[in-house]
């Protein structure tokens, strides 16, 4: 039997899943990596640890399934996006820890870049507002963080890459990135799908250090080392991979993935569509020589990360799933709303000056109410991006395709259906990120003939239907919006 493997290099962990021809999971292995918090608002990963973990989980998944590298026809990579690595190609050593997408250290730089022109200075070219989220400013910050780095980068002695580039370079020796990852850097032009000199000059990133932009699905090269010979045949940003894994191949199809953060993506076909309601424009995928598909995206920075924070920093629960048990000890949120603006607010607000708030506290509130508010935050944030998506597309969403780790939370999924007022459905493979990467890799080597053949693999595994009445939904949303207002304008210039 032949199989395709997917590497899901995520924010909290790296995973490898092996899939068969029907798109069914054959085996799985996972490993968490360290989250490094050097200062408030800063988040880093060690790229070497991530590389080690990735190789370990690939072997882990093969061992679990009783397989060897020779059973794999291709490997696809999906990765946490925007996270920025700069390394020295002669030694292979990173010159700095990876700066993670959640990191807010480029706040001042982004404000400076937008000073006279506003936050949407580059939106026409790259589809993105100026925000700490994206890679370009992170690279520029990094090059200025130590003497000599900028000069070495200009002379081609240092390479930049998002996690896909870092992994592909280490596995195959080629310095490339895929078009979906490149679309998250603020450095790529959405029309030409090439690096844009205006953006490079303005943000201060030397062209010499950039990878070549390639399709998402194509053979990048053969892996060396212990993965000897297997073709690395796809790379996509994890959210774009999930869109692909949910088989949202046509314009108008959308999904939302619930992990560390949550990301609603709507396929808009072969044209980039600019948002009038705070969404961003991104590349959905590019399969070989076929034209790229674009997507509108509502990015939410903190959803599962709030549960993790509640577990690790507050200590009221011992595992992520216990938040549901604790939340079920009460019937409602006790009047509180938790807006987790830990990295400012992303879509649809794009407010770097916001910070987290728990609004509505009274002496009545218990830890059970807190747990409920933690979960409800994910649902209300989704409601905001769904509203923006409906406004942009002019068509109301009739159901939400959800996936990711948080879909294991039944209380959350029901509440989500309640506040959206439409059914929420989960597909039979919750690991759509991996499935999408596997699909893209399998297509590149002819394991699957075409995208249409993949649609038959999608099956509904669960469906939550709304039960909340309209008045209650409206009242809750009104309160949520008031709570959001209270997070704004918190950060001062001297913070």
């Amino acid at each position, binding site marked *: 039997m032949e199989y395709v493997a997917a590497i899901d290099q995520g924010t909290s962990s790296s995973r490898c899943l092996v899939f068969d021809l029907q798109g069914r999971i054959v085996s799985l292995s996972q490993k968490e990596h360290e989250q490094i918090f050097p200062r408030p608002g800063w988040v880093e990963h060690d790229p070497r640890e991530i590389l080690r973990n990735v190789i370990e989980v690939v072997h882990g998944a093969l061992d679990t399934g009783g397989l060897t590298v020779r059973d794999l026809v291709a490997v696809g990579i999906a990765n946490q996006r925007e996270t920025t690595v700069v390394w020295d190609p002669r030694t292979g050593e990173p010159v700095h820890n990876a700066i993670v997408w959640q990191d807010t250290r480029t706040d001042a730089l982004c404000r400076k870049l937008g000073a006279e022109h506003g936050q949407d200075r580059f939106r026409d070219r790259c589809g993105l507002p100026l925000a700490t989220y994206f890679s370009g400013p992170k690279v520029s910050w990094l090059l200025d963080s130590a003497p000599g780095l900028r000069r070495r980068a200009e002379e081609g002695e240092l390479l930049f890459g998002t996690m896909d580039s870092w992994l592909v370079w280490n596995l195959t020796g080629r310095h490339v990135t895929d078009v979906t990852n490149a679309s998250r850097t603020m450095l790529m032009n959405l029309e030409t799908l090439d690096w844009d000199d205006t953006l490079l000059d303005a943000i201060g990133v030397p062209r010499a250090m950039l990878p070549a932009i390639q399709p998402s699905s194509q053979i990048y090269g053969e892996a060396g080392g212990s993965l000897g010979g297997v073709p690395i045949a796809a790379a996509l940003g994890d959210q774009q991979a999930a869109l692909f894994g949910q088989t949202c191949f046509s314009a108008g199809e959308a999904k939302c993935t619930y992990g560390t953060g949550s990301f609603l993506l709507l396929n808009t076909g072969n044209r980039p569509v600019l948002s009038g309601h705070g969404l961003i424009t991104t590349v959905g995928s590019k399969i070989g020589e076929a034209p790229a598909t674009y997507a509108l995206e509502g990015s939410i920075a903190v959803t599962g990360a709030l549960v993790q924070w509640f577990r690790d920093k507050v200590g009221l629960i011992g595992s992520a799933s216990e938040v549901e048990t604790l939340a079920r000890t009460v019937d409602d949120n006790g009047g509180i709303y938790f807006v987790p603006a830990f990295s400012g607010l992303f879509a649809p607000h794009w407010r770097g000056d916001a910070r987290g708030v728990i609004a509505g506290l009274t002496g009545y509130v218990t830890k059970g109410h807190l747990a409920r508010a933690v979960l409800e935050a994910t649902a209300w944030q989704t409601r905001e991006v769904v509203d923006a998506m409906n406004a942009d597309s002019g068509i109301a969403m009739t159901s939400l395709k959800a996936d990711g780790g948080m879909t294991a939370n039944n209380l959350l999924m029901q509440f989500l259906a309640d506040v959206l007022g439409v059914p929420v459905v989960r597909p039979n493979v*919750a690991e759509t990120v991996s499935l999408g990467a596997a699909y893209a890799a399998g297509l590149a080597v002819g394991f699957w003939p075409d995208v249409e053949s993949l649609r038959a693999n999608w099956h509904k*595994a669960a469906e939550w239907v709304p039960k909340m009445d309209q008045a209650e939904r409206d009242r809750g949303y009104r309160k949520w919006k008031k709570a959001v207002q209270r997070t704004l304008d918190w950060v001062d210039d001297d913070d």
Partner: protein
Amino acid sequence: MPKPIQSIERASAILRLLSGRTRRLSLAEVAGELGLPKGTVYGIMRTLLSVGFVEQDPESGKYRIGAALLHLGSSYLDGNELRTRALNWADWLAARTNESVRLGTLHDGHVLLVHHVFRPDNSPQVLEVGSLLPMHATAMGKVLLAYHPYLTEELGNGSLQRFTSCTITDPKLLAIELEQVQEQGWAASLEELIDGETSLAAPIRDRQGVAVGAIAISGPTERLCDDAQPRNELVSYVREGARTISRDLGAVPW
């Protein structure tokens, strides 16, 4: 090595004896089986009662293993945790068998459904998470009963509730089947809850080997059985799914 402490040895022997029996034992029976004076056993039993390691039936005065001991060491696993940890493999089982999958745990003498994966054919189905099922008429219930022998007593001596003409209503017949379930490591409900529907289940065990839940597939008998016997291939998938989840439960929590 210092000399073993005799009273601890005797307490352990009592606990071992009680945990191996499906019915409660009287003081005389325990003393008889262990060859100890009744007075000695009584003293130890009082202490074990006070710490919750044994429980005494108020009417008959007979003893059985206490709940405190059952939860000891087996890091208590709630249904939400089980669902989260089993998510991928429950999907896997549904995709392999083309049937719907359910996960259940013990709850007040019933099976509580903590997870449900639809049959992967996109037909209309309704999420059943949160509902309670009878123990004696479901495959999951039989698995949980077989691995928690003390629970059989709670079913009582009287006739069990009948749901279909195939429901096992005689506790003695059920006990015989449960022994077999424990031996073979899986259970079936052949149209015992709903006419025309068969389910197959296997135990999910934690690090200590305690059956913390059960996973089952269900569907029409003609798909799940050949000649009124569960199809081997499907039984293997159910058992493999249960084993994989159990292996994952041995790992550090999320």
